[in-house]
């Protein structure tokens, strides 16, 4: 499967890492990539359900271009949000809807996470696509 270049770069970066500790460090580095949602804007509507830690995601569509703001209390969860931000931000609605969550598996990101965390990733991914679909 071919991915957008930004996503392919992430997959390549993770696939090059052999050490698990290093892989998680890189994942946490991605937490810097989020457009941070201030705590004052955290609410029940943007809470990611099914995630063990506290995570919030807001998706805005302006002139057909998607942008997400997010934050989480665990750095690895925010790292996952950072990766999603790179995949999503600046893309068109159709590009976001064409995206499938298995890029994270291909990168080996999810293999290293607990099922609950993987589900959290899926929940965030589904949440983004749902909101984008609603914006059509």
């Amino acid at each position, binding site marked *: 499967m071919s991915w957008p270049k930004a996503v392919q770069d992430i997959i390549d970066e993770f696939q090059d890492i052999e*050490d*698990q*500790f290093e*892989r*998680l*460090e890189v994942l*946490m580095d991605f937490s810097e990539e989020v457009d941070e949602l201030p705590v004052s804007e955290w609410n029940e509507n943007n809470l990611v359900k099914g995630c*063990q*830690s506290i995570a919030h995601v807001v998706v805005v569509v302006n002139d057909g271009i998607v942008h997400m703001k997010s934050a989480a*209390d*665990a*750095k*690895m*969860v925010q790292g996952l949000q950072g990766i999603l931000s790179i995949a999503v931000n600046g893309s068109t609605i159709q590009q976001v809807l064409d995206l499938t969550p298995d890029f994270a598996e291909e990168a080996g990101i999810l293999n*290293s*996470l*607990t099922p609950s*965390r993987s589900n959290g990733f899926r929940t965030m991914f589904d949440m983004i696509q749902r909101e984008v679909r609603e914006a059509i």
Partner: protein
Amino acid sequence: MGDSMKHDFPIFSRLINGRPLVYLDNAATTQKPSCVIDAMSHYYSSSNANVHRAVHTLAGEATEGYERCRTLLKQMFNSNYAVITSGTTEAINLVSHAWGSHNLKAGDVVVLTEMEHHSDIVPWQMLAEKTAIELRYVPVENGELDMDAFEVALVGAKLVCMVHTSNVLGIRNPVEEVISKSHSAGARVLLDAAQAVPHESINFHELGADFMAFSAHKMCGPTGIGALLVSDEAFSEMEPFMGGGDMIETVTLEGSTYQTNEHRFEAGTPRIAEGFGWAAALEWLSSVDLESHHERLLKIANRVADQLREKGMTVYSSLRPGDAAVVSFTHPTIHPEDFARLLDAQGIAVRTGHHCAQPLMQKLGISGTIRASFYLYNDDQDADIFLSGIDRVLEAMA
């Protein structure tokens, strides 16, 4: 000491993320020695049959092997009754249905504590919804039960349900005092001993509790099996809860009569392979000097706790003599899940989260902790690897 014992446990030969496994999630479940795995495999490969029914050879072997588990439980814990359940949770639910439903009525008081595992809270809340019993919770102050508040709560109580040793903090409650005061007040006592039996030899009869629930898997036995020990008096007050095969004497279309021994609470085909496995675990444990290991592990846990404090962590366990070797801690800024994941990357298994004790977490004002819990096979080297692993996490997150 712990290292030589690891040879009995096949799991310690595997690597986790390229590192030897340092397993410190023993309060969740312990690893299994070869004899337990072999006993279960032996049952399936050589003696597989249903129990208590047929007269053929395999049925006889299966019944004997399964019932040996019960016999060992009765001997080890000095109890006339050992009902075999799926674990601590089912044992407590069994008390709520088989005893609670028949001996408690609207307005009767059940005393619980803020330190309980969800499995010793939810069954009573469910019963309260059905029968309007009153639940009173003994508060926890500075990680310990408020015994003055306990005495106030005890007035008029019919049942006291208490965790013997906390799964979150490792704290051993003053159960002897609780039992004595509860009985003087006319209340029966149920102990959740899931975290206690792996660490201390308990003489159920001498201790004097009415019910004691625990699980095999926290004491080197298989998952899916546990027990409820019941005093003679309390046993006579229990009525069958689940109906089905194995628990009856006679069945006619008009009605049934029930067995009079523990089988009356064990409807259906039981956990036979698990019974074989647990019997092997109980025998293996009886060859271990629990008390001296407990002392050794508590020393290790105290050393770990001291060093964690020096590294800036808040430690919630007090680790006094008698407490379980459980170190529950938090870091001021690093999320417990990030911490645990980075430890796992180094082959170190710890637990994070609320440990199925949300009311206690609320009382401590935190959402969760990181918990390192030590057991028989753990040694000083495990503690050293754990502490170096912590240092690596702190460096990475600095």
